[in-house]
C-alpha cells in the first residue's frame, strides 16, 4: 500500500515521549486549523481564540458552565475508558445516559411534592442502575451470541431516544404543560444543590465526578480486576492462558460504562435542566469517547481532557455571538480533534518511508 511514492510501515518501538505528545499535538493542530478555517469565513482570529479559550474562564458564571459541561464528559469518559482498555467498545453511552435520566426522573415526577432528603440519593442509585441495565443488554448479547457491542450499543441509543420521545408525549408529559413534550419541573429535593454564588449553575454533581475520578484512578492503577481487564485488551490470548474470563470482562466493562453514563444522565436532569425533556445532552455520550482517548485512557488524563472539551463547548457558544462563527463550530472542533488524534496516533505507531523506485510498485502488484 503506497501513496505518491510513500508507504507507511509499523514502527518496531514507540517511545513513551511520543505517546505523551499525541494529545498535545492533537490540540495544537486542531486549534490552528480551527483559527485558519474561521478566519477564512471572515472571523477575526484574535476574537475567535479569545472567546474560545479565555472568555470561558473569565467569569464565575462561565467557569460554572465549564464545570457543569466537564462533569458529564469526565464521568462518562472514565467509565468508557475502563472498557476501552479491555477493548470492549461501548459507543452507546448517549443511550445509557438517556435511560438513566428517564428512570431517575420517575421519582421526582411521581412524587413532585416530596421534600424527602432521600429523593436525590434515590435518583442517583436508580440512574446508575438503569444505565447499567441498558448497557447490560449489549453485554448479554455479546457474551452469549458474540453480537458486536459497537453496533448493539449504537442501536440501543436510537431506541432509548424513541422511548424518551414516547414517554414525553404520553405517560410522563406534564398534564398542565400546554402539550409541550416535557415533564413537570422537579421539586428542589430532586435537584443537585448549586454552589458558587448567584446565577452560577455549577452543582454538586461535580463532586460525584471528582469522587468517581479518584475511584477510577485507584481501580485502574491498583486493582487486580483492572489488571485482568487490561490484559484482556492488550493480549487476549495471554488473558485466556491465564484464565481471565472474557465473559466477565465484557460484562464488567459495559456495566461500569453504563453506570457512569446513567449517573451523568441524572446530573443533567437533576442539574441545569430540572425536568425531563426531549434533548438531554448535546452529545456528551459521543464526545466522551473523544475525551477518553484524548486523555490517553488514563483517569488523570481524562480529567484534563474533559475540562478542555467543556471549554470548547462553552467557548463555542460564546464565539457564536462575539466572533460570528457558525453554530456548528464546537462539533467541527470535536471532529478536528478526532481526526488529528487518529492521525498523530498513526504516525506515532508507523513511520513513513519512500518506496524504492519502480521495483517497489512491481513488488506490491
Amino acid at each position, binding site marked *: 500500500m503506497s501513496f505518491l511514492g510513500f508507504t507507511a510501515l509499523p514502527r*518496531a*518501538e514507540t517511545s513513551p515521549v511520543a505517546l505523551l505528545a499525541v494529545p498535545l499535538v492533537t490540540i495544537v493542530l486542531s486549534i490552528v486549523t480551527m483559527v485558519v478555517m474561521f478566519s477564512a469565513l471572515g472571523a477575526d482570529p484574535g476574537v475567535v481564540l479569545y472567546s474560545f479559550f479565555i472568555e470561558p474562564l473569565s467569569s464565575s458564571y462561565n467557569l460554572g458552565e465549564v464545570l457543569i459541561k466537564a462533569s458529564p464528559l469526565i464521568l462518562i469518559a472514565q467509565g468508557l475508558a475502563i472498557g476501552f482498555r479491555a477493548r470492549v467498545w461501548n459507543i452507546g453511552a448517549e443511550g445509557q445516559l438517556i435511560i438513566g435520566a428517564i428512570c431517575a426522573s420517575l421519582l421526582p415526577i411521581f412524587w413532585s411534592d416530596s421534600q424527602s432528603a432521600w429523593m436525590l440519593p434515590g435518583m442517583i442509585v436508580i440512574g446508575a442502575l438503569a444505565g447499567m441495565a441498558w448497557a447490560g443488554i449489549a453485554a448479554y448479547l455479546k457474551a452469549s451470541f458474540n453480537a458486536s457491542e459497537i453496533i448493539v450499543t449504537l442501536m440501543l441509543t436510537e431506541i432509548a431516544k424513541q422511548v424518551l420521545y414516547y414517554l414525553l408525549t404520553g405517560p410522563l408529559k406534564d398534564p398542565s404543560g400546554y402539550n409541550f413534550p416535557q415533564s413537570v419541573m422537579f421539586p428542589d429535593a430532586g435537584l443537585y444543590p448549586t454552589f458558587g454564588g448567584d446565577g452560577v449553575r455549577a452543582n454538586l454533581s461535580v463532586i460525584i465526578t471528582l469522587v468517581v475520578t479518584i475511584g477510577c484512578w485507584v481501580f485502574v492503577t*491498583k*486493582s*487486580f*480486576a483492572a*489488571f485482568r481487564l487490561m*490484559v484482556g485488551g*492488550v*493480549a487476549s*490470548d*495471554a*488473558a*485466556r*492462558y*491465564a*484464565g*481471565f*474470563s472474557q465473559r466477565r470482562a465484557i460484562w464488567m466493562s459495559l456495566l461500569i460504562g453504563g453506570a457512569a453514563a446513567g449517573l451523568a444522565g441524572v446530573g443533567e436532569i437533576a442539574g441545569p435542566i430540572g425536568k425531563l425533556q426531549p434533548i438531554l445532552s448535546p452529545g456528551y455520550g459521543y464526545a466522551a469517547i473523544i475525551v477518553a482517548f484524548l486523555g490517553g485512557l488514563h483517569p488523570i488524563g481524562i480529567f484534563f481532557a474533559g475540562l478542555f472539551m467543556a471549554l470548547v463547548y462553552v467557548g463555542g457558544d460564546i464565539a457564536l455571538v462575539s466572533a460570528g462563527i457558525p453554530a456548528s463550530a464546537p462539533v467541527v472542533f470535536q471532529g478536528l480533534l478526532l481526526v488529528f488524534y487518529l492521525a498523530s496516533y498513526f504516525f506515532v505507531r508507523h513511520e513513513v518511508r519512500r518506496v*524504492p*523506485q519502480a*521495483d*517497489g510498485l*512491481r*513488488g506490491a502488484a
Partner: protein
Amino acid sequence: MLISPGSAAGSGAQPESLLRLEGITKSYGSLIANDKIDIHIRPGEIHAVLGENGAGKSTLMKIIFGVTQPNAGTIYWKGRPTEISSPARARALGIGMVFQHFSLFETITVAENISFTVPGDIRDLSRRIRAASETFGLAVEPDALVYKLSVGERQRVELVRCLLQEPSLLILDEPTSVLTPQAVEKLFVTLRMLSDKGIAILYISHKLEEIRALCHSATILRHGQVTGHVDPREETSRSLAKMMIGRDIPRSTHAEAKPDAKIALRVSGLSTRERDPHAVNLKGVCLEVRRGEIFGIAGVSGNGQQALSRFLSGEETLPAARKGEIEILGDAVGHLGAAERRRQGLSFIPEERLGRGAAPGLSLNDNMLLTGHRLGMVARGFIRKRVRDEHAERCIREMDVRCGGSGSNASSLSGGNLQKFIVGREMMLRPKVMVVAQPTWGIDIGAATMVRQKLVDLRDAGVSILLISEELEELFEISDRMAVMFEGRMSPPVHTRTTTPERIGQMMVGVFDARDEIATEAAQ
C-alpha cells in the same frame, strides 16, 4: 543423528563466484544485527548459515532477498556490485526463497497459488508443475486443494514455486523444522539434485547434524558477527556448536525416572470438533501420565497438538457432561477453566511465548502477576506490588534471565530469556502436573539446555510432565515414555529407552503398530 553423511557433492560446482557479500552491516537503533559480514557462495554449492536465534541469520537473509537494505557493505552478484532493492528485484536476479512460515492460500489449488508469482495460464502451469515435480523428485499434485496438504507437501509446493522461476540461488529458512525424519531424507535427495544441476543453496539452520550431512560449506554467526567459515563435513557437532555459542554445550543430565503407579493426568477418549473446518480434530485421544515421569508427545506440527494443549490447559473447556475425559489427580476437570485447573495443581507452558505465555507491552512484573497472582500478590482485590516485584526478581535471578530488570518490557527479551522467565514463573506455582508445548522451539542452545534440565529436576521432584514437542532429539533426551500424534489420533505409548527414532518416524506418518511393546503394561 538420523541422516546418512552427505555425498561428496559440490563436484559440479564451478569455481567462479555467484554471490559475494563484503562487509555487510545492518543496525536497528543501538542493536547491530549484522556486523561486517563476509560470505562467498559458488554456483551449485550448498552453503549453511549457522547460528543461534538472534545471531543475525534472519536479518542477513532479508538483506540478500531484498526485504531490507544494509547500512554498509557491498553485494556482488555474479561478480558485479548489485543493489537488491526489493524481493521482486531479487527474484528477477534469480534468487528464490522458501520461508519458515508458508505463504499459501488454503482454499485454492496448488496451481492457482503458484500462478500468483509465475505467469502463464493454469493448464500450462499445471503441466510445468508436473514436469518440475518429476525432474526434482518433489511429488506435487497441481490440482490439489492446499488445505488438504500436509506440512511436508506444502513445503514441496513452495519449493516447486521457487524452482519454476529458475533461480540460481535458493534460500531455505529452517526447512526441516516441520518434517518427519523420512521427509527430511527425501528433501535432502532433492537438494543434492539441485546442487548437481548448478543451483546454489543457502541453508539456514540450527540443526548441526543436518548441516554436517548436507552442506559443503558453512558460515557461522554469533552476535551478528562471523565466527568462522568451515567445511562442516570436517567438523564435529561439538566443534560447530562451540563456534556457534562460544563455549561448550551444556548437556542436561538425569537418571532414569522412578515413576510410581499413581496417575496424575489422565485423558480418556477426548474427541473435539473444531470450528475451523480445516483444523485437525482430536479423535479419541487417550493418555496417562504418572507421577514423576516425563511423557513425550511427538509428531509433525498440525496433527492436533495445538488442540490437545488448549483442552488440557483449560483455555478451551468441555461441556460438564464430558468433564471426566480429562482428570487431574483423579478429579474430573474437563469443564473447568484455565484458572480453576491451575488451582488443582496444573501449570502450562504454551508454545507461543509472546502474546500467550506472556503479554507483550507489559513489564516482567506484570507478567509475573499474570499467573503468579495466587502467590500472595493480591490482597482484597488490590495488587501487592512489593510481593509481585519480589517474585519477578527472584524468578529472574534463579533462571538467569538476561534483561534490564523486572521492570523491563516482555517484548524486549529474546525468545530464550522470555522462555526462561515463563518456565521459572510456572515452576514457582509449585505444580503437580505440568503441560509443556514446544519448550525449546527457536531458542538458543544455552537456554534450551537449561529449560530441559529444569523439567528433569521437576520430574525428579515428583511432578508429572506432559511434553509436546516437534524436536525428536529433545524427546529422546528427556522423556521417559512417549506417544505420537497423527491426524488427531494418539499412538499407544512406547518406552523411550527401548524404541528408535526410525520407529517413531514411522508412527509420525500414521503407522501405529499394535505389536509395539505397550509401555503402559511394562511400566506396572
